[in-house]
């Protein structure tokens, strides 16, 4: 029995082919992972399946309905969670649930759902005030209302911590019945490895379809296999690191946090945060959503004022000499913070001048950066039109244009596909080998393994510090993700 039958499907936007003569069947009662690079056509495929988009050519049959002509009937049988979750941020948790229950024509019986999502204590909180992980759970709860036969989830786990991701997976598995079909688009290959079926798409075509365990027995191997399928990643010498004009500083501890604290009323966003980072170290800041990682980052680069304590960059106090300290710093914010309507070159021109590169040297510097970051092809494209991976690369280029000895990266790989992430970390590691100090946050536990040392952050406090090996030993775990979850659970006791 098939839930989805697609034959020779083509979907074009103007002259761009998003889905290219695709044929695909999805079996009923199975959880299928949809994997692909940014712009591979995952979202377009999901939207076409439920009739939000109309295909240019081909046949499509979902649960026996034709989404082109029978969208209304089909809607009664599906649950779809779009990338932005579809929540009303100015309604409370319970109001969102009630709204979607009415829209789907199901009874207002949310007790089980609220208990299961652990949202019960937050019923009356506005959805906009929830943490990322909780928003996702609420989005999923709204999608699951009415027990749909076919559940479509568009990258539900982007930017959430391992604990929330694990909860989300558990929620889906326990709330569905054996008859339910799930199509789950994801950038996490360990997630996809645990599903019944994996569909890998690239440039609008299916390049693999089958049991993920047939491809590889472990998630790590699976990731390598998928990368091979996508054309393989050739690790090359990092041009970014090679061309980096690094001047060795005379201080050994390039970044120090000294009892950093940020308090809002009685609430401590960050408390007693102390650590020291050595020259050339990659220091990972890990922790669940809302643990205070971004607040620490902002305080350390002088964007937020600590309520007590201070930080030093290259020995310069960020509180008393913020500008001087910041001159040694490249900062890449969590949100894309370049000018969307400016081209790649114009953005770099601006940041070159903003970081104090002289007008005479600017042209040369920007040309060089465009070259080594591989942005030549896109230099005249608007920043907002770039795919996510390239946007992140451009953000990094802007943060590095003045060759700072210290680099702060706040979730640089959130929502980025696996190939781009590999490439990104190749550059980060090469830069650190040259002597650049890097502080980075991430929710990808495989990335945490690349760090020299990790600080695990929870409820505004450091609960563990050490090398990845030390942390795994401390938690008695074989992999970073289990270590992360064990250490957090332990601290809760």
């Amino acid at each position, binding site marked *: 029995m098939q839930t989805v039958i697609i034959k020779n499907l083509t979907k074009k*936007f*103007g*002259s*761009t082919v*998003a889905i290219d003569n695709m044929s695909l069947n999805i079996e009923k009662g199975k959880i299928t992972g949809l994997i692909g690079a940014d*712009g591979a*056509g995952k*979202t*377009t495929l999901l*939207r076409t399946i*439920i*009739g*939000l*988009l*109309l295909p240019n050519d081909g046949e499509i049959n979902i649960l026996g309905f034709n989404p082109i*002509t029978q*969208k*209304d009937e089909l*809607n*009664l049988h*599906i*649950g*779809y*969670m*779009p*990338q*932005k*979750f*579809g*929540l*009303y*941020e*100015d*309604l409370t948790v319970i*109001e969102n649930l*009630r*709204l*979607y229950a*009415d*829209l*789907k*024509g199901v009874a207002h019986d949310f007790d089980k759902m609220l208990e299961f999502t652990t949202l019960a204590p937050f019923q009356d909180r506005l959805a906009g005030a929830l943490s990322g992980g909780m928003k996702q759970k609420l989005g999923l709860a*709204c999608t699951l209302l009415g027990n749909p036969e076919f559940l479509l989830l568009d990258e539900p786990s982007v930017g959430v911590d391992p604990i929330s991701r694990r909860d989300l997976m558990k929620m889906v598995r326990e709330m569905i019945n054996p008859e339910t079909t799930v199509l789950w688009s994801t950038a996490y290959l360990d997630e996809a490895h645990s599903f019944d079926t994996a569909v890998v798409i690239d440039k609008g075509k299916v390049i693999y379809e089958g049991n993920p365990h047939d491809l590889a027995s472990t998630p790590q191997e699976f990731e390598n296999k998928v990368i091979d399928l996508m054309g393989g990643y050739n690790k090359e010498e990092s041009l970014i690191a090679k061309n980096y004009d690094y001047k060795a500083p005379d201080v050994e501890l390039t970044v120090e946090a000294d009892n950093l604290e940020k308090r809002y009323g009685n609430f401590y966003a960050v408390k007693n945060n102390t650590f020291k980072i050595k020259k050339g170290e990659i220091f990972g800041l890990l922790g669940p959503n809302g643990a205070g990682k971004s607040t620490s980052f902002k305080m350390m680069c002088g964007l937020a004022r600590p309520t007590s304590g201070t930080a030093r960059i290259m020995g310069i106090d960020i509180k008393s000499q913020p500008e001087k300290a910041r001159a040694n710093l490249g900062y890449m914010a969590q949100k894309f913070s370049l000018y969307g309507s400016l081209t790649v070159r114009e953005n770099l021109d601006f940041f070159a001048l903003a970081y104090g590169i002289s007008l005479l040297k600017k042209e040369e510097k920007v040309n060089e950066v465009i070259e080594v970051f591989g942005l030549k092809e*896109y230099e005249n*494209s*608007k920043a*907002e*039109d*770039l*795919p996510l991976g390239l946007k992140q690369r451009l953000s990094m280029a802007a943060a590095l244009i003045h060759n700072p000895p210290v680099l702060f990266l706040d979730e640089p790989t959130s929502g980025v596909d696996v190939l781009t992430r590999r490439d990104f970390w190749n550059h980060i590691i090469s830069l650190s080998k040259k002597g650049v100090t890097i502080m980075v946050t991430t929710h990808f536990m495989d990335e945490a393994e690349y760090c020299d040392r990790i600080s695990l952050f929870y409820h505004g406090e450091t609960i563990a510090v050490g090398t990845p090996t030390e942390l795994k030993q401390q938690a008695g775990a074989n992999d970073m993700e289990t270590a992360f979850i064990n250490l957090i659970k332990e601290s809760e006791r």
Partner: protein
Amino acid sequence: MKILLALIKKEIKQILRDPSSIVIAFVLPIISISIYMYGINLDSVKITMGIKNDDNSPEVATLVKSFGHSKYVNSINFDNMEDIKTAVLSSKIKGAIVIPNDFSTNLSRNHRANLLVITDGSEVNTANYVQSYALAISNQWLLRGKYRGLVQKPLINIENRTWYNPDLNSHHFIVPGSIAITMTLIGILLTSLVIAREWERGTMEALLSTKVRAIHIVLGKYIPYFVLGMLSTAFNMFLCVCVFQIPFRGSYLMFFLISGVFLFTSLGIGLMISTALKNQFMASMVSISVGFMPALMLSGLLFPINSMPTFFQYLTMIIPPRYYVSFIESEFMAGGVNEIRLANAFYLTVLGLLLFAGVYKKTQMRLEASCPPLEGGPKSLISRRGDD
């Protein structure tokens, strides 16, 4: 029906939690009516004029005096032209009168006497007042003084009677007219954001995969904002009639009925903009330029339509506030005139229904979506109506 109710409930909660809609509906009227009441004045006002008298005869001295005693004019005496020039430049006086040295001699000889009136052409309205005041005051002086005999008796006696607004108080029509401005703001500016917001925040995509149909989406927006708009209209009416004591001679039933029709039309424009653009920033810009500006300038509220160039006179025909302003003015000042009510209500209904049909037709149940980046340009949602 249950779906529509759920959407309306949701919308009302959003309105109540968004202070900006409450500000536009209830605070803005207070500000705008106060401005129209105390800030704007289209009536004649007291004007300060300069007088330079070169004729030393005692008769002429009484002319100078009558300028000083007029209830429309303040006068300041000047000795030379230079000072007058400076005073006009610094706006101390709005114009000046120069009485030449042969003024009384000419009159005594039964010759035509000249009087120079200088006005400031940079303020055209005031310049007109200066001219007519100067003429009126000097004519009156002529009738009272020594030269009375020289004036021929006018053969026609004009008696003035001003209907509907005997005091010629412009507040009586401008203040109620501001109701039209507030209602345009609620109807167009506020609602132009609400559908665009659902697209921007991604909630529309979620709605479209539920049982919701186009008619639910459209009515789910029309109804709550209609209620908000009518509440605001009632509040405006309360301000005009009870607080600012503007006389209202029409029927309250007709007033609210036709205001409702006008609101329906305004909502249509706002929702049309929102549905078509799907982008809050663009929608607000467009709604100000096609909604608010014409309401202010082309509705006939501040500038009479029959003194506009022909092209603009025709243009006003597609501007809903034009009909509403004309209705409000007649309802407030003349009391109910059925021809005016009917004509304006008819045009508003036709425009409103056309817009409603347009909004319904434009509300799509699919997204013809984001082009892949780079080749396709920005992530825009291009509309294509579903064929369901």
